[in-house]
């Protein structure tokens, strides 16, 4: 069920990217897609009644959630940070040139 909700979130993001005309809204759609993916990844590593995978002195390791997705999601978040920063700076530059965020008006390229 909860995986299904992640896919719904993913679909919302995809809708945002495909249907919206504002550059900023497209970027938000992109971010939502990435968040949905990361959320799904974390949820896949979850175990029932699991606890955080932190090793502390003198504790027994029992029933921890899968630590690997958490490490990987951190990497994926860094990557999406990079992409988002780049896309936002591109959007600012585009606004600087075209004076609009509307993609229907930004149409120099054809074909």
């Amino acid at each position, binding site marked *: 069920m909860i995986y299904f909700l992640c896919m719904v979130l993913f679909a919302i993001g995809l809708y945002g990217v495909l249907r919206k005309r504002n550059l900023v809204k497209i970027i938000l759609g992109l971010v939502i897609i990435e968040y949905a993916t990361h959320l799904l990844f974390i949820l896949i590593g979850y175990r029932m009644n699991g606890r955080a995978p932190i090793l502390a002195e003198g504790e027994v390791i029992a029933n921890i959630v899968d630590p690997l997705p958490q490490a990987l999601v951190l990497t994926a978040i860094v990557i999406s940070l990079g992409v988002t*920063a780049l896309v936002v700076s591109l959007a*600012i530059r585009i*606004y600087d040139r075209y004076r609009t965020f509307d993609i229907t008006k930004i149409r120099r390229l054809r074909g």
Partner: protein
Amino acid sequence: MSKGPKEAGMTLIVKTITRLTVGLILLYGIYIVTHGHLTPGGGFAGGVIIALSFIHLTLAFGKEVALKKLSKEGTSILDSLGALIFLAIAILGFTGGYFFLNFINKGVPFRLLSAGIIPLCNIAIALKVGAGLFAIFMGLVFLKILDKDKK
């Protein structure tokens, strides 16, 4: 309230609080970095907090003050330096035969000085992330200011 060009930034309350807290935030970031191999956190989280302390400074006092502490070129240099240190640690692993080999003595678990190269890697990552994030923030802010001037 009229502000002269020298008094850029927010009100007195914000400035006073910032003056008190910025150092603490920076220290907390450093703590997170150095204890990255023992507690949650590490290079990335600590680096973000370090960058936040500088961003905080920018927000409260304006960009001139923050840039005096850490200039734009400085961030760029630190950024590359962090990456190079990380790579150098990885290449030094060749001394033991493998790329990325943990070649330093691992020490006793749960001590500050343990886990071989991992704390060093954390420091390198923190440099990279902190400088990189601050540079991204400043880059976006500068672009916007440049935009306003043109109008």
